[in-house]
């Protein structure tokens, strides 16, 4: 008998399985790699601010971001980038990992639905990422960064919006990866593209108009605007951008869920 579409058993079982596997063999390379990128980005901002900017930042930066705190701005961006990249590495690569280990076929014939499986994975990824991003924020705190926050409720909403964006992207990327049977080029292209388009370490207004519009196609862009409102300016989440972020994120979730069955079929057919 098929389990219901959002079976809590499947979510719990996937969470528990991933927890057990990770506890025994934690992928240190992922963690150290993304943490170092974050720490060095904040370090670059810290050293550059002192030596190049003389402790000050350009006027157009203040106009574009609504804040003169360059270091805080870059830190929020670096932490969010680590959240996104690590989220995709965990949740987005879950299916291709099964494919590489030869268990994708077993997963497909299991009565568990794809959505609860991926939700269980995402729940685990979220727990791991919160711990990992805290390490980066701790390093930034030691460098004297004090991000603003408009309130715990707003902070939770901003993180939820970013979480939906990451989950949506992970679903679509899962389908791309198992269809192509390749992860390295896909993941790095996506990471570098969103680093440029979504305004993690610089205001998007610096980009040419075409790229600003292209940025709206990825869910992380609007999610970053929400995050900026909460943690950079402290003005709170802009309702319009929050709605856009959730809408684009959920659209990615739907597209991913519709595409996955075809991608899985393709992946299985190709392996015989």
């Amino acid at each position: 008998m098929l389990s219901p579409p959002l079976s809590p058993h499947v979510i719990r079982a996937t969470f528990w399985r991933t927890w057990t596997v990770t506890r025994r063999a934690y992928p240190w390379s992922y963690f150290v790699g993304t943490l170092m990128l974050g720490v060095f980005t904040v370090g670059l901002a810290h050293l550059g601010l002192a030596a190049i900017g003389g402790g000050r930042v350009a006027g157009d930066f203040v106009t574009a971001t609504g804040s003169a705190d360059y270091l805080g701005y870059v830190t929020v961006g670096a932490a969010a980038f680590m959240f996104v990249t690590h989220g995709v590495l965990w949740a987005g690569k879950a299916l291709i990992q099964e494919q590489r280990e030869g268990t994708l076929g077993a997963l497909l014939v299991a009565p568990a639905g794809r959505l609860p499986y991926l939700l269980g994975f995402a729940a685990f990824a979220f727990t791991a990422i919160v711990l990992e991003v805290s390490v980066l924020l701790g390093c930034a705190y030691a460098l004297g960064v004090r991000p603003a926050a408009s309130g715990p409720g707003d902070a939770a909403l901003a993180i939820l919006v970013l979480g939906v964006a990451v989950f949506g992207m992970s679903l679509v990327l899962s389908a791309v990866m198992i269809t192509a049977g390749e992860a390295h080029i896909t993941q790095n292209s996506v990471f570098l593209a969103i680093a440029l388009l979504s305004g993690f370490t610089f205001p998007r207004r610096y980009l040419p108009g075409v790229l600003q519009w292209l940025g709206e196609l990825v869910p992380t862009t609007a999610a970053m605007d929400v995050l900026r409102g909460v943690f950079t300016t402290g003005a709170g989440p802009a309702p319009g951008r929050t709605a856009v972020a959730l809408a684009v994120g959920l659209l990615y979730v739907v597209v991913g869920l519709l595409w996955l069955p075809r991608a899985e079929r393709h992946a299985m057919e190709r392996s015989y």
Partner: protein
Amino acid sequence: MTDRCLACSLTPEAEPVEHRRAQAGGGLRHTAKVFRAEALKQHRRVFGSRLVVFSMLVWPLMQLAATYYTVRPLAATPGIAGRWPLAADPERLLAFLATGALGFTFFFSLVQSAWHFSFERVTGTLELLFLSPAGRLAIVVGNGFGALVQNVWLFACFMVALFTALDVVHVAHPAMYAVVFLALLVPAVAWGAFLNSLLIFSRDSAFLYTLLDDPMWFAAGVRLPLFALPVWIRVFGSVLPLTGSLAVVRGALLDGRTIGELAPTLLGLGALTVLLTLGAVAALRLGEANAQRTGRLRLF
């Protein structure tokens, strides 16, 4: 069947002097053959798919753009001409970061190719490599050189076009272009040989790959001028050949320095190149001796 020498195809009964002479000449020929074969192998693997253009051109360009936009608000501040004259002109700032990106592409492509050696371990061809009579140093140098030329040519061409468009390059003498080219190429090949020799005996090369990605751009002054870095990071950076290469590239292309002015940096770079090559030879000897003793192709 009579055994024949692999290098000179003479039987052991041949005259010893003749044999040695043939071996010396054949040694060179043999090295060239291994070098060519290894570079061809790299070519076939790298160019298996058209997607390779992403890692060759699109990725470094996107990274360069993001870095430029991140650093720009710091350079457009009052008094920049006193702190860092080069950054006062946005085009020269872009050129500074572009030289950094070019240098990083050179040296990081070798970290990648060294990491690819772990695939030989996975696919079981590493043992075959050591059973073959091919010279070990020729393999690691050929592998690095092949990877380098194929990974950087597109980005290097693009950079030349960018510098021409920005009109920021003013060299003291046309020969400085050759100095710049050699200052990037020669240390990079030695760096590649050294990394290959280390990673060929490593079980977890992904870790070194991670370790040499971000710390390398940070410490070598790829995205920040060296004066912005604290002394202890500069000391760490001076061990990396990329730091010296970038000093030569930027000095010659952006500041119009002469070869005399760059001589101390060039000498340091030369010494580092020799050290890296010696390190490669030592690692290969040590690793192979260890493998002969223990039967395991790994040092760490």
